């Protein structure tokens, strides 16, 4: 495998909960709670998990759009958690993000040409004429006519706006693009257009993606490896094939089994979970999943399991698979 483009070690992001008349801190939301992983050059790394598990926060912290509470991030061999704001701005040329909402993320008062040209201007790339040409080219790459540079965002449909969002991320020729639910807001019949486009671009420009989504069939389609998050923690990390053929973590198993399949002949043995997703401001002790886990044991209530590699390239954080210690329950 190629070398890691991004390495994340012990990443944490806690948000303060404030209350009372003096807005004193009364607790914190552990949105991302000790997450480590690597993303290799040219790969698509998927992140899945239920609403509020910390996917978007992870994505934003990686670009330092919000500052991490703790942990280290290495990009292209350089520790970016140490960079000054100015240095970070320069580095972001190589790290871009695409947001879920193609409506909210484009300034409605600016023409597409200006929205796309902005980044070129900031980084002082090319003359004015070269910038205009680049904008036209990038629009055509994402499947829109170059003349559309003179239109406003409201003149485009949802799918077209997401194409513009992709164009904006691509224009600086980045190495890494963090895609935060890029197709979730789109209609089903438009989703596949955008997914195909993203896949083509990734292959054509040898891009590395972190692809965040809650729709597993979408993540499965595009990702080489997938990380599963639950309440701010990464509970399983495997290649896409391994994860779908043989999910390890009880949460992954129930998540995969809960997806309704549109094929009426596909009979799914369902693992129904009891109860609700706990709050990240007050996560359960030990394994955060133990309150809903069908296989929970005593140890799960008290000891937090660590993410361990249990077979080559397959990582899981679950006491069922713990190798050391006296209760050797490796399965």
């Amino acid at each position: 495998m190629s070398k890691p483009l991004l390495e994340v070690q012990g990443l944490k992001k806690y948000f303060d909960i404030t209350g009372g008349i003096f807005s004193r801190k009364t607790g914190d939301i552990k949105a991302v709670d000790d997450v480590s992983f690597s993303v290799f050059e040219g790969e698509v790394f998927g992140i899945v998990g239920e609403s509020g598990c910390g996917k978007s926060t992870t994505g934003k912290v990686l670009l330092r759009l919000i500052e991490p509470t703790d942990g280290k991030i290495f990009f292209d061999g350089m520790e970016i958690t140490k960079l000054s704001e100015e240095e970070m701005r320069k580095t972001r040329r190589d790290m871009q993000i695409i947001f879920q909402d193609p409506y909210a993320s484009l300034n409605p008062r600016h023409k597409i040409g200006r929205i796309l040209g902005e980044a070129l201007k900031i980084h002082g790339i090319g003359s004015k004429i070269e910038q205009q040409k680049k904008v036209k080219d990038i629009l055509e790459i994402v499947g829109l006519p170059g003349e559309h540079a003179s239109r406003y965002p409201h003149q485009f449909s949802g799918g077209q706006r997401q194409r513009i969002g992709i164009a904006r991320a691509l224009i600086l020729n980045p190495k890494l693009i963090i895609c935060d639910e890029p197709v979730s807001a789109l209609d089903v019949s438009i989703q596949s257009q955008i997914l195909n486009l993203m896949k083509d671009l990734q292959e054509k420009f040898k891009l590395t993606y972190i692809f965040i989504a809650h729709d597993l069939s979408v993540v499965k389609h595009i990702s080489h490896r997938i990380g599963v998050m639950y309440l701010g923690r990464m509970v399983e990390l495997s290649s896409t094939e391994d994860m779908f053929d043989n999910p390890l973590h009880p949460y992954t198993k129930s998540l995969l089994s809960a997806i309704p399949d549109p094929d009426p002949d596909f009979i799914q043995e369902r693992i129904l979970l009891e109860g609700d997703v706990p709050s990240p401001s007050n996560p359960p002790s030990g394994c955060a999943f133990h309150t809903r886990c069908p296989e929970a044991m005593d140890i799960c209530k008290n000891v937090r399991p660590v993410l361990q590699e249990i077979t080559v390239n397959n990582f899981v954080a679950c006491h069922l698979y713990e190798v050391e210690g006296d209760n050797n329950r490796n399965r």
Partner: protein
Amino acid sequence: MKKPVLEINHLRTHFFTDRGVIPAVDDVSFYIYEGEVLGVVGESGCGKSVTSLSVMGLVPNPPGKIVGGEILFRQHSVNETTENLVKVSKKRMRQIRGNQIAMIFQEPMTSLDPLYTIGFQIIEVIKNHEKISKKTARNKAVELLKLVGIPRPEEIVHEYPHQLSGGMRQRVMIAMAMACDPEILIADEPTTALDVTIQAQILELMKKLNREKSMSVMMITHDLGVVAEICNRVVVMYAGKVVEEGDVRTILKSPKHPYTQGLIQSLPKMNQREERLYSIPGNVPKPGEVLQGCHFADRCSMVFNRCVNEDPELYMLNDGHTCRCFLYGQEGDDLNV
């Protein structure tokens, strides 16, 4: 013999706005049998919610108005009476809403009052429905919460909506809808805002209620997985019209309308890996966009002359399978169903 409890015939609900008339629902016909789960699928803006609001007599007026068609509600238990919900009085409609047809709305927060406890709100519904003491109503509320799988129901009745998670609120909504033992439950995307593991719980619950109380369900969703999971029959809508209708197997396995075919083909498959996804070219028409001929014509791979000029009817293909597409009709046909 299966009998329809609800029959919608050529329903047209339009919105009269500053920017022109929006034909949100434009000639929609379908029926729901007693005790069945009917799926209504289609993309954002195709008119699913407006159809259900029309049935409930809740279309915001102005700007909306039912401009044509009928909605027949048949109660087989009550001497086979048939009422046209488009025509009934406001008072009668309120009665029907409180007793016979219940609805779960797309966003549970908009239909729960943040100022009252969960218990108070369910008790209100129960007391509107039957004349019982407050104490009995309270006990029934706790029973209902238990039925929909709410943990600690005795405590939850004293809590306010904001204290509950999304999944719990959605279950409270179902409990409230069940409180009046409705003949028809209209569920507008009841699981879209929920996580898949919670969605699985809710779908299981709805299946159980449908089975045990033989309640008819109109399930609005854009998720074909949910359809396969719970529906008996399916109505597919596109741009304000029903384009195909049939039993769930037929629609998912051998759809006939080019839109339905494209939609099913474009889903990423869970149990196989494919390099490229099929995709329907073009975009969903904008609301209010004037459409001539078949509404799907500009995206359809099978389009021919007739499609651009004439508006196709719903053609009957087989027993219970209809499709709005000229590929299945004869020249000059008028097989209006």
